[in-house]
């Protein structure tokens, strides 16, 4: 083998391997003056939120309206993807090396109860079930905020905040009128949300979840006992700090928190499109033929 051949081979390897094992190309070194590693961003954003005076709606509320996209995210695993993860070299759908989205607790892992570890974290769910997002249900909270563009609307009546997601045409109606949670027998895919303003932060509390969704592509999950608190805070005119705390006494030993950035889509002509999934999802039959089953929380139900 000549040197030239060696060089060619080496460069081919570089071309093939480098993109697969690379850092996320969409991850900038900094966001709104904060380092982009999720924990560093989270700490920095909390600090910035103390002093940033956000634009206001006509009724004086922080104005979060507009189109948003997530940044500093991937949906492969909320616990992060390391270079030794085999899926990073998957030829069909390579995962991207990325830090955990979990910022608390310090271990940055989901504090699963022992029984649940084998189900989440590329366990039973990943091995046997179809990602519920693929069945045209919903990415679920909080993965919704990791996916396609979304729009926040604040009617001047201040009684609701509406959060629309292009991903599988998901709507989140956030009641801002101080009502209490509906009866817990009412279960829904994206839960029922109630919100309030804490200073400049929109705090959204969500209950009535059916536990049919995954947190990420690894099959990490919560059950129908989960409740979720999301905190949305502008840290500059075009960047929002998004932090979400998930509690689930059935599956976790403690709550944990994930954080990332939502950045404004500034194209003045931007509009949400209709993403009718079920009406046109072509790959689902192939996946089912491979023996994967519908999820519907089956792996943890009845335990």
């Amino acid at each position, binding site marked *: 083998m000549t040197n030239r051949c060696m060089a060619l081979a080496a460069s081919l390897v570089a071309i093939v391997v480098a993109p697969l094992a690379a850092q996320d190309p969409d991850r900038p070194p900094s966001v709104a003056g904060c380092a982009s590693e999720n924990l560093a961003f989270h700490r920095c954003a909390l600090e910035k939120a103390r002093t940033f005076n956000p634009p206001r709606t006509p009724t004086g509320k922080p104005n979060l309206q507009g189109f948003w996209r997530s940044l500093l995210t991937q949906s492969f695993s909320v616990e992060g993807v390391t270079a030794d993860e085999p899926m990073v070299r998957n030829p069909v759908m390579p995962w991207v090396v990325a830090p955990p989205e979990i910022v608390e607790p310090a271990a940055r892992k989901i504090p699963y109860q022992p029984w649940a570890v084998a189900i989440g974290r590329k366990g039973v769910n990943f091995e046997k079930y179809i990602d519920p997002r693929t*069945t045209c249900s919903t990415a679920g909270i909080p993965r919704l905020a990791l996916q396609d563009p979304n729009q926040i609307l604040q*009617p001047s009546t201040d009684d609701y905040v*509406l959060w629309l997601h292009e991903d599988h*045409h998901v709507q989140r109606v956030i009641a801002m009128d101080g*009502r209490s949670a509906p009866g817990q027998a009412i279960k829904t895919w*994206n839960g029922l949300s109630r919100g309030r303003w804490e200073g400049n932060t929109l705090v959204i509390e969500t209950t009535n979840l059916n536990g049919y969704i995954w947190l990420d592509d690894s099959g990490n999950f919560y059950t129908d006992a989960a409740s979720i608190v999301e905190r949305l805070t502008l840290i500059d005119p075009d960047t929002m700090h998004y932090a979400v705390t998930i509690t689930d006494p059935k599956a976790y030993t403690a709550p944990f928190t994930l954080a990332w950035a939502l950045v404004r889509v500034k194209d003045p002509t931007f509009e949400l499109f209709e993403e009718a999934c079920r*009406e046109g999802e072509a790959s689902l039959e192939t996946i089912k033929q491979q023996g994967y*089953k*519908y999820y519907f929380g089956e792996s943890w139900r009845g335990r």
Partner: protein
Amino acid sequence: MRTQLAASVAALAFVTIAAHAAIAQTFAPPRTREGTPNLQGIWQVMNAAAWDVQDHGARLGAPAGQGIVVGNEIPYQPQALEKKRDNFANRLTKDPESKGYLPGVPRLMYMPFPFQIFQTPGYVSMVFEYNRGIRIIYTNGTPHPRGPLTWWLGDSRGRWEGDTLVVDVTYFTGETWLDRAGNFHSDQLHLVERFTLAGPDHMNYEVTLEDPQVFTRPWTMRMVLYRRKEPDVRVLDYDAGLLMDEEQARRERANAN
């Protein structure tokens, strides 16, 4: 006797129509901060149009209903009428509703499920309990985007004519129906909808359908939307397709055991 009955029916109809018109004319709608009539709230029809938009007697599983089609006749072209009859005969399997798809507009408006209207500058947004439908009606003066587009709920651009929200809807798929009785349209469907508050808790909803591939002329449906008044009522979740999948998974699991 017959004449007398006809006369009293006519008189009753006149009184009803007159009262209706009077309400619509004299009611001063509440307004948003931006000054447009405030249509916000949770709304729902109380009619049997989801089963059949035309006059119909009761069928098993379907309540009888007085139709919402103005004049009751749908001006189908001859071939389209045949297709409608075939649709009706095979409605249990052919109705796209049975696949759990988004039901299209206007069908989504009179499904027996609530929907909620939100108003913000430039947008009137509607979110539906049935299949998580979202309609974003742009009231910011933008035209329909350049097509061709095929959307299950179409593209909606609205404007205010006095106190009426007028919405132009286009870019439909031809795969949706108008009801469970096989009434249908093609992808050439074009709608003009009119939303007018008739009182604090009633809204007149009128939709004109134009489809040169299916109908001989434009025609109109008219109905009343009622405000849901229960304390803390909210739009919940009825996703037909997911419920079908869940039932199927349950059956497969039962068979496997």
